[in-house]
């Protein structure tokens, strides 16, 4: 595992000229659980930090694998003075079976399209409930209110889904004239 850094050849290409960009690759750091460092524990997750000399638009990341089964790539984006970490690849499978040999020494290239250029939708990121319990003193029961609103929303959806492009036949009425006959008058 500790030989990994020597085996890997990281190549990062920038979008502008499709040439390699120089970067500093730090030694992989193992994730530890708890405080004590135990010699016998072999953690399954390593983090490799890669620093770029200057911000670039990354087009492609190429590397040679050495027995890594899954890869997660996070990028730090600099936008208008603020720095934001985004996950562009999560648990990308490099080895179909972590206990077998397939993919263990393969070369991989990750391209820009593979990353989710859009951030996670706002509503999805706010799904997890707030930590502090809300003070519902005197407020209506949210379950009941939510249930009623959901049903009203669903009923509106049913109505909208049933709307067709059907239109009324204005001149198709019994006892009245046919449109085509108008031209003869």
């Amino acid at each position, binding site marked *: 595992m500790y030989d990994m850094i020597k085996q890997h050849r990281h190549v990062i290409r920038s979008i502008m000229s499709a040439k390699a960009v120089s970067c500093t690759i730090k030694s992989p750091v193992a994730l530890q659980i708890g405080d004590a460092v135990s010699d016998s524990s072999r953690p399954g997750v390593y983090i490799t930090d890669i620093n770029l000399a200057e911000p670039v638009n990354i087009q492609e990341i190429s590397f040679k694998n050495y027995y890594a089964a899954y890869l997660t790539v996070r990028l730090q984006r600099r936008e208008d003075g603020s720095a934001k970490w985004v996950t562009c690849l999560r648990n990308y499978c490099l080895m179909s079976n972590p206990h077998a040999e397939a993919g263990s020494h393969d070369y991989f290239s990750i391209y820009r399209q593979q990353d989710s250029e859009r951030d996670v*939708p706002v*509503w*999805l990121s*706010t*799904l997890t*409930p*707030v930590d502090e319990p*809300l*003070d*519902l*003193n*005197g*407020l*209506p*029961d*949210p*379950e*009941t*209110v*939510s249930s*009623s*609103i*959901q*049903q*009203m*929303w669903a*009923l*509106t959806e*049913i*109505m*909208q889904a*049933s*709307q*067709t492009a*059907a*239109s*009324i*036949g*204005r001149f*198709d*009425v*019994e006892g*009245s004239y*046919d*449109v*085509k006959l108008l031209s003869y008058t």
Partner: protein
Amino acid sequence: MAEKRRAGVVIMSDSKSAAADGDQEFLSQAGVSALLRGALLKLLESRPEDPVGFLAEHFGHLSSEADDGGAEHQSVSRALWHLSLAHHSQRSAFNNNVRVAYELLTQGVPCRVSGGGGVRGRLYSEMLRCLCSEGGLSGSTAAPLLRRIQSHDYEAVPFELFRQGVLTCAVFADYIRKSQCLYAAVASAPDRPAERTLCQAVLSTLREALETADGTDVARYLEASAKISPAKVAQAMAEVHPRAQLQDGPTMDAQEFEDAAAALFIARVRIVT
């Protein structure tokens, strides 16, 4: 036995044959036998689960036709009766009933070569009006909806539009009933009006969910339902109603709430042009 039965008649006349003629004459004059025959034929045709009820309905319709003289009124009430048999959520049964109602209302309209018939506009509008009132909607609540979907008297309404209009009215009736439940949930007590800020927070939660427009159906449903989850609703309510304020603020009465909720629905009803 025969003598006993005729005892009353004997007073009036001497001969048995005269009494018999009187009975038969009465029956044939009133057309009762034809009436009964027609009723029995209809009964055999439809084979309802409740024969007595069916016969009662049948004779009821006949008598109202005799009173009003208008076959139209009879067909509208018959159509309404069919539509009342299944809730709109029972999709296939409801659609079948809509088809039956449509056929009832298009009887007598000659099929034109150019485009096929349809329900006369006046009948269609009357149907929708009756549907709304049978669904418990007041005239003022239903009026803005009807303005959008009813047709002119002289127009012919094809089946798809007919079905759409009927479904919209049925769904709207449910929607208003739900909004009344919602108001009751928001109001702190049955006899006191609900707080205005709470009402507005709840209504805007619904409005935001309705305005979720982007993406595929599945994405829309997920996003909308996330907006109206109990946690989100609790958050919205807590934001406008901090603990310090008790029930001192302005209130919103039930009718105003219902009108605001109705407006959200009606705004999304396509205007029939």
